[in-house]
């Protein structure tokens, strides 16, 4: 696939707002679509889309935050107050939890969403071509109450913010 095609996909993707978001299934596809670039991007520090053979399947299979971040980005993240992570305090439905990540940080090249309590830590990862608005929105499945972490790669550095999302059986609401 060519870079042009990828850019077109990205534009479709980032027209999305919180309200007019994709379905979870489409968002997942989009994430997979973008995923190939990650290894290449960090390897040569540029927005280069690699072929499907470079899909970072190892990163998506990691079970811990440290291992997943290392496999995906090969760097460590520092906490940042420049990232907005919009996720519910208590999930209305743990199977489809809306999560939005946006940031005003300059030079954003990638955004990833991690669910630390899930069997596989990385729920979604996006590569952002230059000129793309730094905002993604997806719906992720949560196995249980967990911290959800947003990672933003910008200017060759990795930043993170975290929020606890409660998954409850429900009932007994007064």
């Amino acid at each position, binding site marked *: 696939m060519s870079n042009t095609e990828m850019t077109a996909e990205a534009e479709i993707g980032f027209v999305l707002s919180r309200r007019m978001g994709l379905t979870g299934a489409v968002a997942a596809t989009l994430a997979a679509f973008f995923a190939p670039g990650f290894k290449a991007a960090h390897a040569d520090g540029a927005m280069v889309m690699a072929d499907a053979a470079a899909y970072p399947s190892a990163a998506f299979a990691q079970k811990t935050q440290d291992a997943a971040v290392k496999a995906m980005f090969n760097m460590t993240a520092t906490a940042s107050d420049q990232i907005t992570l919009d996720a519910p305090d208590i999930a209305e439905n743990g199977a489809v939890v809306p999560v939005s990540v946006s940031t005003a940080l300059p030079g954003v090249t990638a955004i990833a969403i991690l669910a630390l309590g899930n069997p596989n830590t990385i729920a979604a990862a996006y590569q952002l071509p230059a000129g793309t608005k730094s905002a993604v929105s997806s719906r992720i499945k949560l196995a249980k109450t967990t911290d959800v972490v947003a990672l933003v790669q910008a200017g060759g550095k990795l930043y993170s913010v975290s929020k606890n999302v409660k998954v409850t059986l*429900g009932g007994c*609401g*007064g």
Partner: protein
Amino acid sequence: MILSRRSLIASAGAVSLAPSALAAAGMYDVPFKANARILHITDTHAQANPVQFREPSVNLGIGKAMGRPPHLVGEAFLKYFDIPANGAKAHAFTFMDFERAAHRYGPMGGFAHLKTLIDQLRAQAGTGKTLLLDGGDLTQGSGVANLTGGKDMIALANILGTDALTGHWEFTYGEDGLHALIAAFKGQFIAQNVFLTDDAAFAGKPAFDTASLHVFAPFTIRECGGFQVGIVGQAFPYVPIAHPSRFVPDWTFGIHPDTMQKTVDDLRNNHKVDAVILLSHNGMDTDLALAAQVRGIDIILGGHTHDAVPVPQIVKNAGGRTIVTNAGSAGKFVAVLDLSLAKGALKGLNYTLLPVYSHEIKPDAAMAAEIAKWRAPHKAMLEEPLAEVETLLYRRGNFTGTMDQMICNALRQELDAEIVLSPGFRWGNTVMPGDKITMEDVLSETAITYGDVYVQNMTGAAIKAAMEDVCDNLFNPDPYYQQGGDMVRVGGMNYACTPGQTIGNRISEMTLSNGQSIDAAKTYKVAGWASVAQPQNTQPVWDVVANYLRSAKTVRIDKPNVTKLIGVGQNPGYAA
């Protein structure tokens, strides 16, 4: 800002008169020395007629909330708020000496009495100087409301002259049911925290604002005493979690401090209002946390947690300060807020939480007739006496109440279960010893739109997990993760609770009533009601309880089940 704890106590203290002289001494004369008067009622739970309602003897605050309003009961409550013991006011605000005081002061609330009182408070302030705001849970909690889909209470609110309303149980009538109530309501239904889901927006479902996706108007602006008052609505944030989500498939909730801030900024910067008031159904702990986070709200008028707090709390935040109130439940109280306003600023507040002693107020005839009209088709059913009551039956409290113990006993026997789980709702009236418990009483404890009973097999581990889940809704140290109900009531078993622990570690020492330990791996037959899963298509719980009462003929709860508390120590939210 002329506002201190002492001045507020002084104003609240204006009603502490000798009961024999209540009406004669003009206990309901609240002199108006301000620009605008706001009247606030909340969580009346469809109690059209006066009721007995015992305030809790256990309302624990854990961690930062320990000893802080609203987590005070009994003597600690009276001491903190400087209320004399044994008087009318002590009866209204606490559980103390409930039976004796309930006989002496009579039932409380009732919409015909509220109508007389509210009209008098309006007359004192003068034309165009009052607003009446209802914080929600108006339309659920009685047999008549359940049978009419809440329409009876909207009719009463229209006579009362309610200007704005937000919601909680209103949503359990379903999206169409709530739209019908709003269509009949002469005031404005407001909620800044209810949005169309992505799918519903895509499908073009109706919304107040198709850009912001607010399903309802987030606020209303009313002129009051020559000033512009912005009133923002905050519905109960966890409707699809605490109740079956099938009632609100197109709507998504949450606390949304971000959109709250934007709404407040919009009111101040663009609409140039003189005061911003939040009509909230968050619950008091959540309101206190929100007040610290959001700038620019003058007053949060709180409900949901049914806390009758006589003195408002003042919370500092980046924008200055926000005053937080909570106005009790069941129609027992009317909050009177006299606002001293200047252009764009609240300069002073005089707050009085008036207890509504029905014996001291002449009921409004037109309202009484309307109540009777809605009740008439169901009168025979409602007034059926089911059993003689020998000991006080009440619900409210963090862990248990004698009414719920009776309900658990009923389900255990009628459904032949080993263990019963019954929801810890905070509404539900009190029935006095010597009275007969009627079908109306049973419905005032159970009337919901998903009241079918269930019987299922659960392992000991699953029972513990369910209890841990509910307990975290009550005691999570972050109020944004609480839902505002009390602990699930249990029948046929006992347990210990460590509120200061984390989820998974609070519930211990689970035993059957016979003393046998509950085995995590063993399966037990569990009965309950108010499941948030799919419709049960079984008997409604009120029929099961009524059958039990008819055959039992008397109700006597001699030895209330007491949850063993660990690590609570001398908590002012606990009275033995």
